[in-house]
């Protein structure tokens, strides 16, 4: 199977690999997938608590090249978005951008799940609901 140039680029030069310190204000962490399934993504967002904007994002992924690329791309797209906007990212956007073949669509689904899980974690931990306020504004 040949990989698209974008998948290869994200694999070779993954954006935003890493983890935030646990006590970082505005931090939300999503951990999705399962080792037995061959894919685990950890995606973290750091939200500005005043503006509700995602200032930074990081990921770590156990998985194939397409899973790494999907999560790397997700962190790029998350940065600078409001939490509400971030919830609009769909797995199909990732499929189209990375030109993922049908057998790799689950990688993009996992990335979308990771985004949602990180936001849910942020909302739970930081009690504020900027997703709603920002979305309604």
């Amino acid at each position, binding site marked *: 199977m040949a990989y698209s140039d974008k998948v290869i680029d994200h694999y070779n030069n993954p954006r935003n690999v890493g983890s935030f310190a646990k006590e970082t204000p505005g931090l939300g962490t999503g951990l999705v997938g399962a080792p*037995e399934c*061959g894919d685990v993504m950890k995606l973290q967002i750091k939200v500005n608590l005043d503006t509700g904007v995602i200032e930074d994002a990081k990921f770590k992924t*156990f998985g194939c090249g397409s*899973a790494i690329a999907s999560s790397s791309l997700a962190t790029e797209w998350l940065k600078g978005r409001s939490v509400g906007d971030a919830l609009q990212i769909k797995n199909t956007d990732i499929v189209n951008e990375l030109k993922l073949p049908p057998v790799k669509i689950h990688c993009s689904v996992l990335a979308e799940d990771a985004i949602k899980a990180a936001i849910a974690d942020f909302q739970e931990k930081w009690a504020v609901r900027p997703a709603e306020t920002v979305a309604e504004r």
Partner: protein
Amino acid sequence: MAVKLPIFMDANSTTPVDPRVVEAMLPYFTEKFGHPGSRNHPFGWEAEAAMDRGREQLARLIGARDPKELVFTSGGTEADNLAIKGVVEMYREKGNHIVTTAVEPRSVLDPCQRLEKQGVAVTYLPVDPAGLVDVDAVRRAITDKTILISIMFANNEIGTIQSVAEIGKLAKERGILFHTDATEAVGKIPVDVEKMGVDLLSCTAHKIYGPKGIGALYVRRRGPRVRIASQIDGGGHERGARSGTVPVALAVAFGKAAELCREVMADEAAHLARLRDRLQDRILSAVDEAYLNGHPERRLPHVLNISFAYVEGESVLMGLNREVALSSGSACTSATLEPSYVIQALGVGADLAHSSIRYGLHRFTTEEEVDYVADRTVEVVRRLREMSPLYELAKEGVDLKSIQWKAE
């Protein structure tokens, strides 16, 4: 010396054809192109003689008493199908039970599964963590309906060599036919159908430095005389066991490849085992939590299979695939989207099956290549661990099994 890239280290998928084999076969495409079944002119005589010489060379490699015991097929898959379906059909009145293992190649498992739908009972024996089948478990699985034991000689993913001679002896005692898929073992380690009590044996040319497109099934003719029902009907070639014109050039090549393997086997096996051990030591000494899959000693000399915890196999291959050809048991590299059933059968867990990498060395592998592949593997695994959430959790002391994973 600089190594030439890309390096081929996936020799359990296929091997390069030895130039001496190519040389031997080429005339049989052009000036010696006759049909071996043409009995009335010199083109046919020449073709038949060449085909039978190939058969003799192959018979010598596997210790067959009579070259007539070898039936040429299109490859190992067809040989397995012919053995299993051919025996079941022929011995239906005697019984309807097959004993095999969970780690057989798909070319054995899939025919068995098809036969199950037709009312044949199949026992799939488990293996121990090193990939070995317990001979006593084979003994216990036998019923008065058992007509066939089909257990591979050596595994193509992990290299573990089964107790073939013991199983052959058991089969003889119980009057049951014994088939072994020996595609990965023939030409690499001593295989002797007489000494080992094998009644049917599958092999293929392209794993022994011959071309793709030809294999063979050994079918014992004496003690006992094994009969198989043909699965491809037509002109009655190969003594009626397999119709279809034998590709003479490929039969010549198969024979030449077999002869070369027989000549160099002892030296080549020792050399490959030394290179394989060098590769293994260099990787395992540099990477923590890397686990050998397969039996540490009873293993083919050219196979190395390692699971690198916390990194997924396809991502390792992706980091190497411009330079090194390897394979992985990861689901992402399989057609079925399941991780290797062979690695899973070792009881290591699906996560380590996803993390397995197979190195297949061959006749033309060099020490420089081994060192290069080892060093690059280590680099890639380290890089991927730096971006692995599992590695991070494990280093923090979190037991990964304690986490409630949100699987899809």
